[in-house]
């Protein structure tokens, strides 16, 4: 198991070719580092002594060359070293992550999320840093050390002996200090973690702390740990710096001895000056590899501690095997036999006690009981999410705990009470189970095919998600590519809808009319009235577009818009000043929460000197605010009739002079369209890509599908009319065979992190659909419909009853007892035991626990 491998296992067994290359480079570079020493000696003794300039030049040139080459090699070694380290780290991370995912659920219950994350990221990072140099550094340092020492001996054995004699002392003293350091370091890691947990707990339980005024208690709790940490850190640093100081001391002792003895020898002619200089250089150079070795030793201890901490944390065996060996995954029929199943946790708490049941394939069982009765535990056991030791669960005669995860995934589908929705699209989430199965089965034979579009939509309808998916589809903004095959149909639909529903539409929708000011569009859209592809005219770039400034002036809009921007800024700052950056409240304002501070500052400045006196950058911010203003949605200001007229005038000028578009043609088409007549032929694609106009003959790529179909924006205040309108549009789409297409588009809706753009009910329905799409022999539902409204619950219940009966075995933990009527059998649990079993009618007749439960629910 990965967690049992030592740190050096990875170094010994991975990236061997590259490590050998690094070693080879090291050997060569060492030679290149000794060479300059010899050259130094020759420069002094030969070139300078004998006053030979050409030799001087030669030796200096070689010196430079050697030094440069040595640094090039060092660079290559460093890069390769790091590469090797990161590569190995990558593998450790991936293997550890794969191991982590299989750990038993109990592990995740007792381990804080933060701990897992920090162990996998920060702690392992430090290990990775070490691994790269794990072999290279000690080898380099050792060899360098030996070569320099050898050179020193070659120059003068006695001097070398004396100066090197200092080192053995270090070899003994330093490791002693180091061992103490390591022990303290391990304590430190634990203490830091303990402190984080205490602080985390205090923050989480702040209500209790403040309610009980237990400030002194809590301070003491954290204080104890903080003080302990303080003590540890102090001692750690004493040892750490002690080691360094000793090293330093020894380092300076050497030169002292050298100057004394070597100088004496030179004075007495027994040693050349050049040799002394070379010797001194060599001696100084010995220090570095020595220091590197010591640092390496410390890093090794540190990395080992971290590595073992990380691995120790995850050192648990997965409860179940992952893949079947030597056979394909089973295809089971769904016969379930449970005999005498018991589950005790922490040696005391009995969750289940002697539970037995029998289910034939295709039968449907309801599990009911009081809270804490063990219903969910039983469901989790049947889904192989918990392991058991006492009793048996047989599926088609196979003991469940011996089946592999792949066998289970293929044959058992599980829907949790609080399902998790991954970020991605609705489609991704629906197909999650099927895709997982396909990915895992790739090795063991042909993977099961993914459900096709028709099946997906069928399931969406069955779980009651179709309205939501249609809504997502209608709200989608399509790009050119996606839209192209549908464009002609959509434009035809638009005309048809307008002819059939113009009165209802008129109440709920504000049509795109090139001749009018529109209350439900931004000022920006009112001005440019179309899709803007020239980035210079995109909203965020307008401040940098001088043509825009000219355009505003020419249309006499610069003053009024600046004023509008100022008013909006002032009102918003006053209104939301104390709200903070809660995005919820900013939704009804053209200001984004992160811009608040900027506008607050501008308002303060403008208050003193008036908006016209503001610097251009600030004025541009006010223009942007005004351009984002939607009169019909943002309540903070109004647009007067003259201003509205000026904007429409400016629009028409823009369309003709800047956009170079056919204003008259669009005006005519709009008039025809609004009267219910044919607006004319659709625009050819590809003409003037920079700008387009909201014309009835064009598809508007910057607006949603629904906006395109109704050719306008929905008036927010028409709540009931909106709902009816959507229904009418949906019906019309169905009649024209476009509904499936819209639903397909809706499936691409991005659900947000953890599905936070979905309601609780939508998340649950997706989870149910996800499990049902796998078409497993067994389906387990743990109060899966608990948070759905009555209609949806009934619908899904109906699906289970009619479509799954006889084909898939169903075990459902149910909450609403009237739905129990539809099940073949009901099992009543209390305190982990089965107290009653039978059909609905039997149990009611018996007037026992089930009868009490049913009665309790209705009174």
């Amino acid at each position, binding site marked *: 198991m990965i967690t049992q491998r030592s740190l050096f296992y990875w170094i010994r067994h991975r990236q061997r070719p590259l490590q050998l290359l690094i070693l080879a480079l090291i050997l060569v570079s060492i030679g290149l580092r000794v060479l300059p020493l010899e050259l130094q000696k020759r420069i002094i003794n030969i070139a300078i002594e004998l006053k030979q300039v050409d030799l001087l030049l030669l030796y200096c040139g070689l010196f430079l060359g050697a030094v440069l080459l040595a640094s090039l090699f060092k660079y290559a070694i460093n890069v390769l070293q790091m590469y090797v380290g990161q590569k190995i780290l990558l593998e450790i991370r991936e293997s550890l992550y794969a191991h982590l995912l299989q750990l038993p659920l109990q592990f995740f219950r007792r381990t804080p999320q933060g701990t897992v994350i920090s162990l996998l990221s920060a702690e392992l990072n430090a290990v990775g840093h070490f691994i790269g140099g794990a072999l290279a550094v000690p080898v380099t340092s050792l060899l360098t050390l030996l070569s320099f020492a050898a050179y020193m001996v070659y120059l003068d054995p006695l001097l070398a002996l004396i100066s090197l004699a200092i080192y053995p002392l270090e070899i003994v003293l330093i490791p002693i200090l180091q061992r103490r350091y390591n022990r303290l370091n391990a304590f430190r890691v634990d203490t830091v973690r303990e402190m984080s947990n205490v602080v985390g707990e205090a923050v989480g339980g702040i209500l209790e702390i403040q309610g009980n005024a237990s400030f002194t208690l809590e301070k003491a709790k954290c204080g104890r740990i903080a003080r302990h940490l303080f003590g540890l850190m102090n001692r750690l640093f004493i040892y750490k710096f002690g080691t360094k100081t000793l090293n330093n001391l020894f380092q300076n002792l050497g030169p002292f001895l050298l100057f004394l003895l070597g100088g004496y020898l030179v004075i007495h002619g027994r040693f050349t000056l050049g040799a002394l200089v070379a010797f001194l250089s060599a001696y100084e150079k010995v220090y570095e590899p020595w220091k590197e070795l010591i640092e390496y030793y410390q890093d090794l201890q540190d990395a080992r501690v971290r590595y073992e901490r990380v691995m120790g944390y995850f050192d648990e065996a997965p409860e179940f095997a992952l893949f079947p060996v030597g056979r394909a995954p089973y295809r089971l029929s769904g016969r379930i036999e449970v005999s005498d199943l018991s589950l005790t946790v922490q040696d005391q708490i009995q969750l289940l006690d002697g539970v037995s049941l029998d289910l034939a394939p295709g039968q449907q069982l309801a599990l009911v009981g009081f809270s804490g009765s063990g219903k969910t535990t039983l469901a989790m056991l049947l889904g192989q999410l918990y392991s058991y030791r006492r009793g048996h669960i047989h599926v088609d005669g196979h003991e469940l705990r011996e089946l592999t995860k792949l066998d289970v995934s293929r044959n058992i589908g599980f829907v949790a009470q609080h399902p998790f929705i991954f970020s991605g699209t609705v489609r991704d989430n629906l197909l999650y189970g099927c895709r997982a199965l396909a990915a895992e089965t790739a090795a063991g034979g042909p993977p099961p095919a993914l459900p096709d579009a028709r099946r997906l939509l069928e399931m969406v309808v069955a779980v009651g998600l179709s309205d939501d998916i249609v809504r997502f589809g209608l709200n989608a903004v399509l790009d050119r590519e996606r839209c192209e095959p549908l464009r002609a149909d959509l434009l035809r639909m638009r005309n048809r809808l307008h002819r059939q529903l113009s009165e209802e539409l008129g*109440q709920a929708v504000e049509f795109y009319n090139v001749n009018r000011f529109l209350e439900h569009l931004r000022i920006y859209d009112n001005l440019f009235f179309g899709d803007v592809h020239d980035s210079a005219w995109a909203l965020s770039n307008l401040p940098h577009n001088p043509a825009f400034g000219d355009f505003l002036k020419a249309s006499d809009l610069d003053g009024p818009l600046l004023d509008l921007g100022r008013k909006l800024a002032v009102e918003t700052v006053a*209104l939301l000043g104390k709200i903070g950056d*809660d995005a919820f*409240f900013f939704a009804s304002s053209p200001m984004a929460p992160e811009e608040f501070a900027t506008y607050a500052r501008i308002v303060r400045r403008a208050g003193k000197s008036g908006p016209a006196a503001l610097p251009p950058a600030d004025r541009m911010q006010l223009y942007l605010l005004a351009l984002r203003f939607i009169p019909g949605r943002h309540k*903070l*200001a*109004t647009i007067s009739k003259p201003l509205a007229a000026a904007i429409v005038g400016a629009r028409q000028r823009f369309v003709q002079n800047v956009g170079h578009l056919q204003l008259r043609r669009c005006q005519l088409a709009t008039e025809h369209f609004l009267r219910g007549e044919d607006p004319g032929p659709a625009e050819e694609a590809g003409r003037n890509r920079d700008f387009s106009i909201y014309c009835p003959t064009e598809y508007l790529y910057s607006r949603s599908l629904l906006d395109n179909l109704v050719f306008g924006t929905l008036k927010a*205040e028409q709540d*009931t*009319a909106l709902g009816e309108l959507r229904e009418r549009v949906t019906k019309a789409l169905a009649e024209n065979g476009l509904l499936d297409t819209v639903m397909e588009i809706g499936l691409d809706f991005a659900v947000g992190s953890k599905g936070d753009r979905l309601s609780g009910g939508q998340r649950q329905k997706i989870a149910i659909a996800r499990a049902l799409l796998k078409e497993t022999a067994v389906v387990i539902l743990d109060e899966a419909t608990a948070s759905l409204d009555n209609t949806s619950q009934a619908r899904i219940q109906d699906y289970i009853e009619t479509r799954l009966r006889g084909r898939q075995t169903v075990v459902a933990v149910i909450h609403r007892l009237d739905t129990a009527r539809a099940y073949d059998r009901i099992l009543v649990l209390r305190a982990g035991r089965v107290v009653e079993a039978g059909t609905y009618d039997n149990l009611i007749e018996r007037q026992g626990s089930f009868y009490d439960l049913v009665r309790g629910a209705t009174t």
Partner: protein
Amino acid sequence: MTAETHQNRSELAQNMDYLRQLSPFERTPFEIIRLYAYIARRIRFGQGDFIFRQNQQASRAYLILSGSVVLSVEKSGQTLPLQVLGPMGFFGYMSLLACYDWGLNAQATAATETLSLDRESFRKILIRFPDQCIEVVDSLVRLRMQRMHEHMETLIKNIKDPGGLAKLEGGINL
């Protein structure tokens, strides 16, 4: 307020004027009323449209700006009208305080424009400014009790068999 001045005032300012006239908001500080006015939405209903129905989840309070609304209760197939509200009529306000199912129907008897507050926004403001908003909560509850008495009077007047009151299952949930 004339049509002209009406037009030049922002919707926010108009909303504030309307809310100020309601008893629960009489003594609410300016900055809180302004926030309520900001989160309030204008919603229009056609004649005969239901604003909400019995047993639907309650989440919004409504103030009638123009038009009229009838509040009624349905039981065993019978619909009993309890009250007709006109402009400045305020109803559904208990949904600002708690989540429950409507016990009444509210139906527009003419084209009606309302100003509506939702629970989620109301709660967010309450959490931010608890001291200022708790008085609003008190006033809403008092208003509710008063209206409940009015409805009870109406029902009692309409019961043909006063002795049968004791047999009614579970009481009437208004």
